């Protein structure tokens, strides 16, 4: 007998019983799974329960037309967001002048969308004149929830809606600028790259104006860090080259630690493009 009072030399003991029993159960399960029962038709993986049939999306490539349609959709995201923001009635008192800036930016985005649609039409493509649903779903709707609150989702409204609206606008303008810059590497024709970047450069100017409005003066021109949060401050010129990195936007009511929720935005990639089969609803 060993210290546990089990006789290891015996042909049947508890450990051996468990090992043998476990192996038998595993083998039975495996054989059952491999069997040609009604739940495992030939050629399919065995599964338990019913799985609803799925329809795959059509195969599509990020062609020049798709890239320009996607860029147009982003312009409509900006237009719609600025419209909503203007309706909030936040731009009063000392912020009254900001309404003129927002109106000008909205008009610029309308002009950009029109210009892009013109390029697409000229090349006999099909325009896409509505907002990008994926961008709304991922970034803009959550951002507006954080600013305005959403009772159903248990999100409290921001204490500083005007500051948050400005931060969101800076995020969106930076996102647009980055998108055009990124798409230069994907567009096949030089003239389309120049047309895209001509718009992207204007989005960059928008971002610089907003950064100066949020963080004014000489300290807000170059890159700097917020000593409290350790995060970068908004800067009119954050670096020597246009970034393609993630855009962090802090919004909403601060939590117990005093931090706002950070929303990370990225340029529309393959799962967010306005492919030829996508239609405006």
């Amino acid at each position, binding site marked *: 007998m060993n210290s546990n009072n089990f006789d290891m030399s015996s042909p049947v003991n508890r450990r051996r019983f468990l090992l043998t029993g476990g192996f038998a159960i595993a083998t039975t399960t495996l054989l059952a799974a491999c069997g040609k029962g009604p739940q495992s038709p030939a050629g399919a993986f065995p599964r338990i329960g019913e799985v609803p049939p799925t329809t795959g999306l059509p195969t599509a*490539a990020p*062609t*020049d*037309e798709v890239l320009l349609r996607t860029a147009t959709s982003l312009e409509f995201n900006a237009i719609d967001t600025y419209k909503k923001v203007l309706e909030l009635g936040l731009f009063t008192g000392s912020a009254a002048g900001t309404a*003129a*800036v927002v109106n*000008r930016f909205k008009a*610029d985005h309308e002009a950009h969308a029109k210009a892009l649609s013109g390029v*697409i039409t000229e*090349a*006999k*493509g*099909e325009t896409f004149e509505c907002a990008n649903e994926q961008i709304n779903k991922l970034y803009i709707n959550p951002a507006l929830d954080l600013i305005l609150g959403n009772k159903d989702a248990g999100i409290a409204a921001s204490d500083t809606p005007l500051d948050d609206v400005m931060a969101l606008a800076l995020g969106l303008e930076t996102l647009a*600028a980055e998108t*055009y*810059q990124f798409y*230069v*590497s994907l567009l*096949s024709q*030089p*003239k389309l*790259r*120049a*047309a895209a*970047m*001509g718009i*992207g*450069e*204007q989005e*960059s*100017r*928008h*971002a*610089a*104006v907003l950064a*100066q409005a949020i963080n004014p003066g*000489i300290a807000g*021109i*170059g890159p700097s860090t917020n000593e409290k949060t350790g995060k970068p401050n908004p800067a*009119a*010129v954050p*670096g*020597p*080259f*246009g970034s393609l990195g993630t855009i962090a936007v802090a919004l909403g009511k601060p939590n117990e630690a005093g931090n706002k929720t950070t929303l990370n935005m990225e340029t529309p990639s393959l799962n967010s493009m306005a492919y030829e089969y996508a239609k405006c609803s």
Partner: protein
Amino acid sequence: MDAPTTTAPPKQPTKSDIAVLQFAHGIELAMTALYAKASAAAGKDLKVVTDLFGAHHLAYAQSLAGLLGRSAATAQNASFYTAFVAAAASGSDAELAGTFLSLENSLVKTHLGVLGTITGTDGAQLVASIISVQGRHAAVLAGFAGKKALGDILDNAAEPLDTKTYPA
């Protein structure tokens, strides 16, 4: 829209790209030198800006040199530098900022022209990342130049620089 091409654009600058990028390189070298002149003439706040933006233009010149390798321009664009050195080295802060606002706007248009000409994607990506920031430079300089209207900050009616006016 036109049927998508099945041939991917080249990554490296082509022969015809090189001549265009050489011009841009010479201009960026000259801009670095012009900002150095302005830094000596500028007031405290504008000096911070001219030093920062001058360093950016040096980074552009270095990146273009890296892209072009042995084909890089060997000197700044002398005719461009000569045309603007007096304005870049004297005047009030508002006048200096106005000069560089106009130059940055011209460079944005010049690089957009470069982007519309070159076929290599490495060069296109680099030039696009430069354009994006030069637009920001212009927006900041407009403030120092005393331009308050949004149109003066956001609109760019400048003409691109060309090799006929500013031969390397």
